[in-house]
């Protein structure tokens, strides 16, 4: 039963490799984009923490900045 599922009448190598390639591609792209997102969030947090008080007040008044910090899990 299990060997039938794996071998698929001699087409197993083709079918499994096509599905494996697809799933590995999905995982790779997901990991790359996640990594890029985290990197940018971290960079944003670092840049934000180096602002002077005056610039900080200007920056924090913008909703988009607050939202970015909120979703990066920042304690600023």
């Amino acid at each position: 039963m299990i060997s039938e599922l794996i071998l698929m009448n001699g087409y197993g190598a083709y079918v499994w490799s096509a599905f494996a390639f697809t799933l590995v591609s999905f995982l790779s792209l997901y990991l790359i984009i996640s990594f890029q997102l985290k990197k940018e969030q971290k960079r944003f947090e670092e840049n934000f923490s180096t602002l002077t008080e005056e610039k900080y007040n200007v920056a924090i008044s913008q909703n988009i900045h607050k939202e970015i910090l909120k979703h990066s899990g920042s304690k600023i």
Partner: protein
Amino acid sequence: MFEFFNPYKIFRINSTLQKIIFFCFIIVLSVGLVEALFLSPEDYLQKDSVRIMYVHVPAAWISLGIFSTIALLSFSVFIFKNKNLILISKSLAPSGILFTLIALVTGSIWGKPTWGTWWAWDARITSMLILFILYTLYLLSFRIFEDQDKSNKISSIIAIFGAINIPIIKFSVDWWNTLHQPASISLTEKSAIHTSMLIPLIIMTAAFALFSVLIFLMKYNTELIKIKNKGLKRL
């Protein structure tokens, strides 16, 4: 009209939607894989190799859909001069290029047991390869040109001119004699595929679509934060 494309609003919705879409994607993909690999019947002629269709066809459909959207958005950029449309197009491209690659590779794997060859310079396959090159050029244009206005203009031109390739891909099987079979599914006519095969195909298409939306949301947020990072330095 462009209030809908407000970056703050999109970022806020994106961040909430990502988790929901990821969860839905895992569920739909799991159901789709069980259907495609174990529950759907084998083909009377192609036997079990027909199961490759469940990854090959959705990938091809979505890669075409994404490029058409990018072309349409790029055309709108020239009319409405809205830079957020470029951001949306740029964020769609990574999943588009991946699905084109998947369609090419799985098509090649399917070609070996069906046609006896991994590759043929046939109209459908060649036009899909051109689509992959167009996606590559589109993404490279953002990296090559440092001047943002120039890169936006060049990428939009690539997308608009590249759109000529979309009907060529779609009708290549009707216009030329190719190894590739004609379309089995049409929006206007009755499907030539039996329901037992059509259902897994639709489920897998839904899973692939969810994945492209997930990648789009993540990439959009990444690009937006990148822009805001530059803005912080200019304060």
